[in-house]
């Protein structure tokens, strides 16, 4: 069909362009492309294949099951897949067999990994909790974790690849304190006889703004999807391109008189005789119910506010006397080049960040991948999908 109800267009050219730009900025530091949460809602497999085709050799995916999905579509062991959040019930054997890189937060977790080793040693990144308090070992627990790692490495059970931490990005001072804590932890590890081939601490925001935090590798997520994190900085300011464009087709138009109540609870009433256009995307699809009064969509390049409550499957816009027809394309967010809001503007309008918006675009919205015609593995992968 030419006019699907809803669609998220995923532009791999934009992703590749962002990747080139970011790698140029970070040169000579390695970039790990972060693709947790199904590539921030963009769809993991096409993004990962595009990144690998572009030469990326480090990918971060949060969990072992996600990493195994990538191995299963032919992403080989020349690409390191970093995971760092593990279910307490996870059996690490498949991860170790598939050479998945495992972030480890404490001695008990490392012991479970060591116990799961059969033939090949497990690839391990030791996590330091430098203040975010999410993963990694606290300063107090760090020596125990390191000592176990030293022993396990000597026994050939693990290969320690790196030490890492996550920054809280609360303030420059807090992040400096966190990196100082990380550096002390690295010294402690060295004093305990552990050689750490790599260190990685910075993600998208700190990687751009705090050059001294780049260490051996920077973990880049949001920037690669065209969603820079600094306040007041647009993607265009940095030369980044938003990767996801969310569109829908006008499913119905209707002419209604003045003072017509619109949608649940009649929170919007028409100010004059007007045309309402029905947009078949709702809060089940990731357009928050709170979007009324905050979000504008474009039809034919012109902005229209959401009229009335967003419902589960749909909302309405008041298009006045404009010529809007069933089947016309509604752009909810995109690159901004045609007058539409960007996902960063959505985040700001909704009191959150772009990542929350893209991650929550729901399963009912098909991802249409464009920019795979250049050849390489993405096109092959997409052709094999039903």
């Amino acid at each position, binding site marked *: 069909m030419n006019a699907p109800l809803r669609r998220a267009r995923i532009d791999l050219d934009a992703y590749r362009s962002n990747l080139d730009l970011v790698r140029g900025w970070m040169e000579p530091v390695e970039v790990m492309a972060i693709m947790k949460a199904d590539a921030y809602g963009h769809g993991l497999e096409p993004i990962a294949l595009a990144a690998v085709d572009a030469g990326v050799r480090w990918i971060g995916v949060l969990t072992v099951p996600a990493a195994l999905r990538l191995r299963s579509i032919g992403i080989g062991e020349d690409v390191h897949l970093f995971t760092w959040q593990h279910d307490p*019930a996870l059996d690490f054997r498949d991860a170790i067999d598939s050479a998945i890189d495992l972030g480890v937060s404490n001695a008990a977790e490392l012991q479970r990994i060591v116990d799961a080793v059969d033939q090949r040693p497990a690839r391990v990144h030791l996590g330091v*909790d430098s203040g975010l308090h999410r993963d990694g070992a*606290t300063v107090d627990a760090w020596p125990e974790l390191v000592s176990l790692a030293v022993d396990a490495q000597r026994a050939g059970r693990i290969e320690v690849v790196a030490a890492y931490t996550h920054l*809280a990005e609360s303030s420059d001072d807090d992040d400096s304190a966190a990196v100082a804590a990380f550096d002390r932890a690295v010294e402690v590890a060295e004093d305990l006889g552990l050689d750490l081939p790599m260190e990685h601490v910075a993600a998208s925001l700190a990687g751009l703004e705090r050059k001294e935090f780049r260490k051996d590798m920077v973990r880049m997520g949001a920037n690669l999807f065209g969603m820079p994190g600094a306040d007041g900085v647009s993607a265009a300011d940095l030369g980044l391109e938003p990767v996801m464009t969310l569109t829908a087709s006008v499913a*119905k138009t209707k002419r209604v008189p003045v003072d017509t109540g*619109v949608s*649940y609870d009649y929170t919007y009433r028409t100010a004059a005789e007007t045309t309402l256009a029905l947009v078949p995307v709702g809060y089940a699809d990731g357009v928050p119910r709170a979007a009324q009064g905050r979000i504008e969509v474009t039809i034919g390049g012109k902005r229209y506010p959401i009229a009335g409550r967003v419902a589960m499957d749909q909302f309405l816009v008041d298009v006045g006397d404009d010529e809007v027809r069933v089947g016309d394309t509604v752009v909810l967010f995109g690159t901004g080049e045609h007058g539409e809001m960007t996902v960063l503007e959505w985040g700001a309008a909704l009191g959150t960040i772009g*990542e929350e918006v893209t991650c*929550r675009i729901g399963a009912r919205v098909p991802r249409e991948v464009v920019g795979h015609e250049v050849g390489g593995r993405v096109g092959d992968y997409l052709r094999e999908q039903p």
Partner: protein
Amino acid sequence: MSAFTGITVDREALIANYVTVSERVSPAGVIAVVKANAYGHGAVHAARAFVDAGAEWLGVADVDEGIALRRAGIDEGVRILAWLHAPDEDFRRAAQYGITPAVSSVSQLAAAADSEVPEVHVCVDTGLSRNGAVESEWAELFATAGRIARSGGRTRVEGLMSHLSNASRADDLDQDAALQRARDGLAANGIVPEIVHLAASAASIALPETRHDAARVGLALYGLSPLPDRSAADLGLRPAMRVTAAVLRTVPVAAGEGVSYGYTWRAETDTRLAVIGLGYADGFDRGLGDRVSVRIGDRRFPVVGRVAMNAMHVDIGDADVSVGDEAVLWGDPADGDPAVEEWATAIDTINYEVVARIGRSVERRTT
């Protein structure tokens, strides 16, 4: 044994709710609404439970959702109604898969007839201004329906539907009166629909006169109350969704230390945090920190700090909580679990949105 991280949907609760709702609205029937992945509960599982409980009708938003149910084995003995259509929907797939379209315009009605869909429902706008033909379009739409009926083609108008705004009792009754005008308009063209349906969950309880031949019930079947002043238990319903997460880690923090991105929360005293592996990508708002609590064991503990993409923090103080323990985000308050409405109130929305937005990445299991 480590706790399950994800959603558990209680099949027995779905069945019990269907029975409760059926008895309440009887002699009207029930169209069990399973759109939007059954409000986040898993469409196929929910549809099977309702069918096993006796459902003869399922409601979905679009034809694709209906096809997914057919492909999962919901056989054509069970009717499926869909009312939100793509602009160029030609209804051939609807005919092929036995999906009954509700049509909102002359062009949709004509397309359905051309595709030889056996039955259609006519959808009219009685005030919500959403789907449905507006009153000024009725004459032409009903005349077209009359012509199609007289033409001896395969397609017949089986039903008439509209949707209430829940703005007020008076507004809803105005809509009911408008629906009667639509009924009269169809009758003037020789069509008497067998199934007239207007009320959804809220009105099916609060405004019995709007039940007509069937109520389209979604939320109440999942065991949640559609009414702000009545709890699920008040209505004899059992919440079917339980969201749990395993504690991934416990970590001590000292007084004054910040937690999670932006350090939006700082510990007032020395305490401990539990990290659980659900975050905003999974459907739990980034801004929920400091506004909700989870149950671990028999106690409640507050969620603190920014909710991250795939994790959130819980302040557990000196409680006996360890890795692998179960944190309950919400479930059935009758079992002591937090109510989903607590999460809805915390972010100024309704229970519908909280359950419907649970992400596709979250594991769902059924009992």
